[in-house]
């Protein structure tokens, strides 16, 4: 009797194999994403180096003409950079306030049953294919805006920016709402008990306490906006130029990459390599942004 009971306490062979195997399997899965990142950097790196053997980094960064496909050739990335930031800036100016406002509404004001309906609807917006938003910009937003601005071109930065904004709103509102929801109820109660209004609780207690999550949502959204391709390819045009008028056509880095990839630039030519140089630029910008965001979030976080 005693012996039989004791046996149950010895190691089960199958269980110990699983205990040994599982962490290794999970580690392998984690390795996939790290491996991919390394692979991407490696590919970008090779062709980028080949490009910079022909064009100096200085010319690339400071040049104000981007005409790599036509003579006289010039490889100054500034026009693409400016076009990208113009669209991204418009998108963020449009999406940040709306995204935060809806997050505050959902987290602090909406009754439970409203939130249960509205939040999924907002998230459905995130599932709209960007090509659809591109044509929405081209065939709906632009014609509407042309009624207000009669100098607006068919391809322009403003409509593209607004639609990229629409694309990133769900990301901002959903992630910010999660961050605000995670703020403990007892902090809100403390503020209410001092005579704070709902708005004061939202802006002075919940918002600062959720700031790191909110900043994280901004940065993710910003990165998505910078890297967004389809909307700008369809609706922002293909004229790389230094022009800050949002009613004019521009070209973003991503739209340029599409233009070359879908064209007939042969492997190994400088036209082909420009794509990698531009891609690398995009990669570095996003990478730096993420680091900056991490630092900001760490600096301003109100830990609860």
């Amino acid at each position, binding site marked *: 009797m005693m012996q039989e009971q004791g046996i149950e306490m010895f190691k089960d062979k199958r269980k110990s194999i699983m205990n040994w195997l599982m962490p290794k399997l999970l580690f392998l899965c984690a390795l996939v994403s790290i491996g991919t990142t390394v692979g991407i950097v490696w590919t970008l790196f090779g062709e980028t180096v080949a490009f910079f053997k022909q064009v100096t980094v200085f010319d690339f960064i400071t040049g104000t003409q981007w005409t790599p496909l036509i003579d006289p050739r010039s490889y100054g990335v500034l026009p693409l950079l400016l076009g990208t930031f113009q669209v991204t800036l418009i998108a963020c100016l449009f999406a940040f306030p709306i995204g935060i406002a809806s997050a505050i509404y959902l987290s602090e004001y909406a*009754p439970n049953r409203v939130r249960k309906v509205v939040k999924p609807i907002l998230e459905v917006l995130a599932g709209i294919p960007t090509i659809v938003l591109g044509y929405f910009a081209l065939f709906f937003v632009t014609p509407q805006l042309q009624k207000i601005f009669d100098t607006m071109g068919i391809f322009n930065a403003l409509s593209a920016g607004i639609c990229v904004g629409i694309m990133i709103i769900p990301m901002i509102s959903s992630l910010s709402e999660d961050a605000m929801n995670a703020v403990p109820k007892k902090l809100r109660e403390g503020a209410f008990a001092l005579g704070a209004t709902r708005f004061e609780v939202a802006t002075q207690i919940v918002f600062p306490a959720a700031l790191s999550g909110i900043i994280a949502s901004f940065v993710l959204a910003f990165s998505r906006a910078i890297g967004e391709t389809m909307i700008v390819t369809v609706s922002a045009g293909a004229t790389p130029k230094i022009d800050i008028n949002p009613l004019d056509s521009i070209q973003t880095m991503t739209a340029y990459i599409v233009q070359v990839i879908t064209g007939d630039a042969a492997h190994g030519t400088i036209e082909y390599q420009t794509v990698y140089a531009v891609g690398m630029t995009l990669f570095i910008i996003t990478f730096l942004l993420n680091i900056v965001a991490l630092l900001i979030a760490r600096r301003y976080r*109100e830990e609860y």
Partner: protein
Amino acid sequence: MEKAIRIDGLNVYYETFHALKNIQIEALPARAITALIGPSGCGKSTFLRTINRMNDLVPGSRVDGKIIINGVDIYDQQVDVEALRKKIGMVFQQPNPFPKSIYDNIAFGPRLHGVTKKSELDEIVESSLRQAALWDEVKDKLKKMAYDISGGQQQRLCIARAIAVNPEILLMDEATSALDPISTIKIEELAQELKSKYTIIMVTHNMHQAARASDHTGFFLNGELVEFATTEQLFSNPGDERTESYITGRFG
């Protein structure tokens, strides 16, 4: 005895649950400590939270009856809830300092209500912390995060924060139940000092605390106020046999 609050036919419902049944208190004394005791779920916390209308925040809650403070029914349509809560401070079961500096925690309330001058805020912060017997311990680290001090200190910080908006009434919802015995004694002593200025109503799970720290005691059971009397009378000569059973430890 000066009376601070009169309760008249108070009923509270959560959805269909009848949480408080026809509560009647002729005179809840001012500038004294009233303790509310009773087993878990008896309605004592609910009662406390009707006094500063924190229950308004609970979806599905409904109140009828009257709570009269300074001659005004606080559930009257005309009453500004934020102004009411400014007059009635609250300290919670868990210390809940804001994730801000010690200074900003105290200054939060006054700032909400329009104090902006630095010198004035400095003064409020110092006097509130002194009243909460915390000044000597934190005066050199006002800029530090409130989470850097101990749990007992945090709770006194929350008391200071409540005092900073100059309330008349202080509600304490099991304010010592998350604290160690030494911090608990400190808070009880603090309450004794504060009662000369504020009307204090404390919910406590701990009968002994009610017996040693309060002047009046109310005993709640199943949503009813069974008995309300001076603490001395309630504990030495209870008028209801349910009270007697509870205080002698036969249930609860």
